[in-house]
């Protein structure tokens, strides 16, 4: 049986760990609120730009943006994988990476090459270790705010590769924020833009009534290009905000579980400690009594 001091040390170290996990839980809880807030604030922009894109795709016939045209043969696939920079957030990153890995395997079996854009450290580490996946761009160390400025460059590389025909399809992987307890890893097709994605039901009804004929200033093409690029960026940005909210809530839940487990462990260890202490006392007593009887 472990000696009293050993158990006491063990209890102390578990208590310290518990302090850390509890602090992390509280930090994550407060960050989560902010992250959710940011996620909600990003929504109007996404909706508005989708409306504009929908109107535009219905209005202009003379120029169809390459993002809207789907290609017949798909040889190369681009993926944007959004993960967190830090760990200790439960199975969040593992789930999304597993989903990505499954898809990559099925693409590879069809002889389709995969190029990845990694947002977040965890995904970058994973993807760069995978053979058969080439990492073409990455963003890490975003911190707590999804910095649009830093995303632009990474997204542009993917978009350029798509426009130049180096990629035929682009998917995005991230954790969708359902609620605090639940985050689901999702895969969505980013490019080519599907009609369902642009046209929600209400939009369809609206655009059927009034087909817009825009005046473009200065010209149709650059304006449409701009809108399309911004639309994709907005989608990526939204995915990043969702993933960040998911990260914080997953971390909060994971740390809460860790703190609870530490509490249970401490209870058990305390019980063992007390038992061994009592056993030692009993032993000593019986020895004294035995000694006295012998005298």
């Amino acid at each position, binding site marked *: 049986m472990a000696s009293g001091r050993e158990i006491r040390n063990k209890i102390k170290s578990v208590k310290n760990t518990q302090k850390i996990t509890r602090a992390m839980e509280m930090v994550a809880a407060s960050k989560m609120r902010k992250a959710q807030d940011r996620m909600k604030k990003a929504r109007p*922009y996404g909706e508005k730009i989708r409306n504009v894109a929908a109107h535009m795709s219905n209005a202009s016939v003379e120029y169809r943006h390459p993002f809207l045209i789907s290609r017949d043969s798909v040889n190369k696939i681009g993926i944007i994988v959004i993960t967190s920079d830090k760990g200790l957030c439960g199975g969040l990153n593992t789930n999304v990476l597993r989903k990505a890995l499954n898809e990559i395997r099925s693409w590879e079996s069809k002889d389709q090459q995969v190029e990845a854009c990694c947002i977040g450290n965890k995904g970058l580490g994973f993807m760069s270790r995978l053979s058969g996946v080439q990492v073409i*761009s990455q963003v890490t160390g975003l911190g707590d705010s999804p910095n649009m400025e830093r995303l632009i460059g990474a997204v542009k590389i993917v978009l350029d590769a798509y426009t130049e025909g180096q990629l035929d399809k682009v998917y995005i992987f991230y954790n969708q924020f359902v609620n605090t307890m639940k985050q689901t890893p999702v895969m969505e097709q980013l490019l080519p833009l599907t009609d369902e994605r642009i046209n929600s039901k209400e939009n369809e009804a609206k655009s059927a009534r009034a087909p817009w004929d825009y005046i473009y200033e200065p010209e149709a093409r650059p304006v449409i290009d701009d809108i399309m690029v911004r639309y994709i960026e*907005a989608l990526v940005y939204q995915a990043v905000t969702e993933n960040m909210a998911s990260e914080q809530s997953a971390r909060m839940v994971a740390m809460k579980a860790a703190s609870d487990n530490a509490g249970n462990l401490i209870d058990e260890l305390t019980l063992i400690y007390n038992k061994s202490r009592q056993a030692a006392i009993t032993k000593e007593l019986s020895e004294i009594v035995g000694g006295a009887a012998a005298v």
Partner: protein
Amino acid sequence: MGTIFHLDIVSAEESIYSGPAEFIVAPAMMGEVGIFPQHTPMLTRIKSGVVKVKAPLQDDEEIYVSGGMLEVQPDVVTILADTAVRGKDLDEAKALEVKKQAEEIMKNKISEVEYARAQAELIEAVAQLAAIQKLRKRGH
């Protein structure tokens, strides 16, 4: 209907303005544009500058935007404001930068980038200054 339209100014980070307006002036790419209700549908890029909003029964409001897109429909006007300083060279530069990182070539050879960025920042700063001065003049 007819005398007002709905105005939304949104950026990726937040919704800046949402409400009725009688008239707005925005710094479009080809020069300032004033928009009244029932304007013909229009799509244009806007520069960094001040958007003047005349809301019904309220004082004029001036909102600074750092560029973006302006969409006009007869009853709805949407301004999609950029949060980042944009520019073709700049975007290109950012992409290059990221690419370099991805290839893990950490050579600091971005003097052109710095120049483009500084220029964009300067333009933005000038526009911001102008907005501040305007506000000061009116005694805010």
